[in-house]
């Protein structure tokens, strides 16, 4: 569904992505992991078209995304740090996004809004919100349009355990619908029961892209964190 081939990106002298190629298929739930500064967020941003790669290309359903923008209607994106216009309220942000994405027949998936209890905070201005509440807004926006692909950048960072569980339940639910889900996180334990694939990145390079079961077999570890660690030691 999403194919990246030889994607490279430099920010001035710093290489953030180096010849990254990957192939993501519908129904997969991919964990994008790696240390800080390994290029996970940049990779996600290139997939979303927010960062334009210096070389290489990315296709979405067989179409190059460079001159296309409509493909983004199939993606729900939850950024690592959600930044929103300060003097809009939660309600205004939600309704603006609904308005802009011009979603006709389909109904909106507002499950998370109620689950997080945002429906009673609709009149709060974005600038008054805590980091966690902002994360909740970001999560709601990502799921709102029932997209085929979900890209979640550190979804549980900053969320309290309860909300974190609520979000994971939601992700699980969506996974069952056969959606492509891509999650970055460095809290590896969270992902154990969710994911089917693992992509490991380091210093802008894609180190491996493996099925979780293969990975477990190879390393003999059940826990994802341990499995990764043992791979790293081997190398």
């Amino acid at each position, binding site marked *: 569904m999403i194919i990246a081939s030889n994607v490279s990106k430099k*920010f001035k002298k710093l290489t953030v992505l180096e010849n990254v190629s990957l192939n993501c298929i519908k129904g997969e739930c991919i964990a994008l992991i790696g240390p800080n500064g390994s290029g996970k967020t940049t990779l996600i*941003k290139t997939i*979303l*078209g*927010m*960062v*334009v790669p210096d070389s290489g290309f990315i296709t979405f359903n067989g179409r190059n995304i460079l001159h296309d*923008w*409509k*493909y*983004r*209607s199939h*993606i729900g*994106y939850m*950024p690592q740090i959600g*930044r*929103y*216009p*300060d*003097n*809009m309220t939660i309600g205004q942000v939600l309704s*603006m*996004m609904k*308005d*802009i*994405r*011009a979603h006709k027949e389909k109904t909106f998936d507002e499950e998370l809004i109620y689950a997080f209890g945002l429906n009673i905070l609709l009149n709060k201005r974005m600038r008054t919100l805590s980091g966690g509440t902002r994360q909740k807004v970001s999560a709601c926006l990502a799921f709102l349009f029932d997209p085929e692909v979900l890209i979640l950048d550190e979804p549980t960072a900053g969320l309290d355990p309860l909300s974190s569980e609520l979000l994971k339940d939601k992700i699980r639910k969506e996974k069952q619908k056969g959606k492509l889900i891509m999650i970055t996180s460095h809290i590896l334990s969270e992902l154990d029961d969710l994911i089917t694939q693992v992509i490991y990145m380091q210093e802008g390079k894609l180190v491996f892209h493996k099925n979780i079961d293969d990975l477990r077999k190879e390393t003999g570890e059940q826990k994802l964190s341990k499995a990764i660690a043992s791979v790293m030691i081997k190398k």
Partner: protein
Amino acid sequence: MIKIVKYVIVDILRNKIVIAYTAFLLAISLSIFNLEDNTSKGLLSLLNIILIIIPLVSIIFSTIYVYNSSEFLELLVSQPLKRKNIWMSLFAGLAISLSFAFCIGAGIPIILYAASSTGFVMLGMGLILSIVFASVAMLSAVMIRDKAKGIGISILLWLYFSLLFDGMVLFILFQFEDYPLEKIMVAITAFNPIDLGRILILLKMDISAMMGYTGAIFRDFFGTGTGFFIALLVMLLWVAVPAWLSVRTFNRKDL
């Protein structure tokens, strides 16, 4: 795209600065026309406001606004929207709000007190200058990542267009006094939208002086229908070119 323009305008209006700017213009224009006993002198005072204040407020407000909308832009860019549309909507929202502020603040007094051809040309030039400097601001804000630096560059650009450029022209005029510079001067004005606007206003305001030898060359060019049309076209280029360059940069910009 219209939807985004709508959100931008609503946001700008919520931001009290444009309202304050409108009120400021209105207060100044009304007091000018009420204090001066003849309207031509009132228009003259208003000319200085149009040539100095309008570009200054337009460029600085727009630059700051673009920087402050970075979250908004980031949010929109991840959505199924064309980047060009997002950027042009931001520009359109700014241009519309600034033009609207100018129309209310200076346009109403002009129509009430000085509804002459001079008044209308002034109104038109004020509008175009508002938009030109919004466009220039868009370019400087997209080219420079750092907010403080970007605002500094915008102030410098304003200083350049309203003072330094003219100083340079005056210097050239006296350095090359012995050469026939009139025609070149007409071409040089094309490089400064403030000068271009000022000359188009002068041709109405000081028509008698512009008929004299000194002004004849400018009248011969700008005074004719074609000349006026070309001048207007150049003004529109001053809107279009920075806007187009900024779209191009924004299209390739990493957020």
